[in-house]
């Protein structure tokens, strides 16, 4: 019988059970992945980001918070123009990292 009630799943990110395999693997070949200071320059300049939700800053976080599928979906918006790599104040090779994630 349907009473019209349901349980909402917890919105908490459960850090204890997050699978970091992809992120850690990525880190081996791209150690600069750790140095992001979340300034958002990459997202602000992103050609795709002007029209879609594409944000490299968020992709990095998604990988560290167990949202790998969402990250991979978002990456599809990227056109590999490389402007993000040009503006990054930490000198992170973002374009290469984006390519590596999809590989």
């Amino acid at each position, binding site marked *: 019988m349907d009473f019209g009630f349901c349980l909402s799943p917890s919105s*908490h*990110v459960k*850090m*204890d059970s997050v699978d970091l395999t992809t992120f850690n693997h990525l880190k081996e070949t791209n150690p*600069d992945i*750790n*140095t992001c200071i979340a300034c958002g320059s990459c997202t602000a300049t992103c050609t795709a980001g002007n029209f879609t939700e594409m944000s490299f800053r968020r992709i990095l*976080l998604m990988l560290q918070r167990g949202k790998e599928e969402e990250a991979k979906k978002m990456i599809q918006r990227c056109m590999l123009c490389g402007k993000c790599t040009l503006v990054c104040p930490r000198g992170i090779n973002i374009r290469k990292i984006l390519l590596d994630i999809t590989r």
Partner: protein
Amino acid sequence: MKENILIIGGGAAGMEAATQLQKMGLTPIIVEKSEHLGGHIAQWDRLFPAFHPAKDVVDQMLNQVKDVKTYLNTEVTDIQRNSDGFKAILSNNETIDAKAVILATGFDIFKAERKQEYGYGIYNNVMTSVELENFFRTGNDARINNPKKIGFVHCVGARDVKVCNTYCSKVCCTTALKQACEIKEVFPDAEVYTFYMDLRMFGPGYEDLYLKTQKDFDVKCVRGRVCEVSEDMDGKLVIKAEDTLFGKPLKMTLDVLVLMCSMEKNKSIDVIQQKLGVANNSDGFMQNKDMYLGMNGTAQDGVFVAGACTAPKSLPDTIGEARSVATQVFNYINSK
């Protein structure tokens, strides 16, 4: 002619001011309430940003003041202004006549119990930054038993209207990252998280330390304030915070949680401060004349301030102020 200058407090500010005043031909007298000179910094292991041993600096300072008249385990119990300057009575019943007084009484550490939601004093594995530093110095702390996950909470007792401390305590951000690197040095396999609101890396080499923390030590910085801590059945700590950059609440189990406690005004000097007529500022620290050219002066003629008694300060800040207060006192004496 030798002139007595009474310095209350034998920490970094008091010692450095005494050193400079002595070189200027004046007679500094240090009155220190504890049994040792050096203040908080004498209990510290290494200094940010370059992991320099604190003992090195303290030993140099101690060496410089070895000929300065010093009272240990002594407090100023009464002080009065007279036509010659000041007359101070010490807890050992001695009397000191001085031309000028320097308040170099420094700070106290915020009592972490006051932020009850962090569970300090309730849960075993919640500790303060001072206790962690003590672990680095002595290697002893029963709570640190090969931890796998360690968290640092920034701004404990700072930027927090609920504990009446709206100010930034200035040095805790850099200290947190320094300690995060150090704990990774001791336990390379541990995961280390810091929970910050802003990372205030204001000094030379501090940003380099931040980069090193991320790159060489793989410390994970999460933007968001820890809101509550609880204990699970195994005695591990469960923390909640929002990952504000991700926009989602986050839950995590930790072995050890370190609280970066802020600096508060050292209130043990309040009675003497009141007798001297020096007011407090809105942060509860001592009010100096102004924060630019008058930073070492007070509203009272002949009463000077130096170091963390006026605001939270780093060691280089404090040494700089101690040197400048010496110049101010020298000029004051010469103008008499």
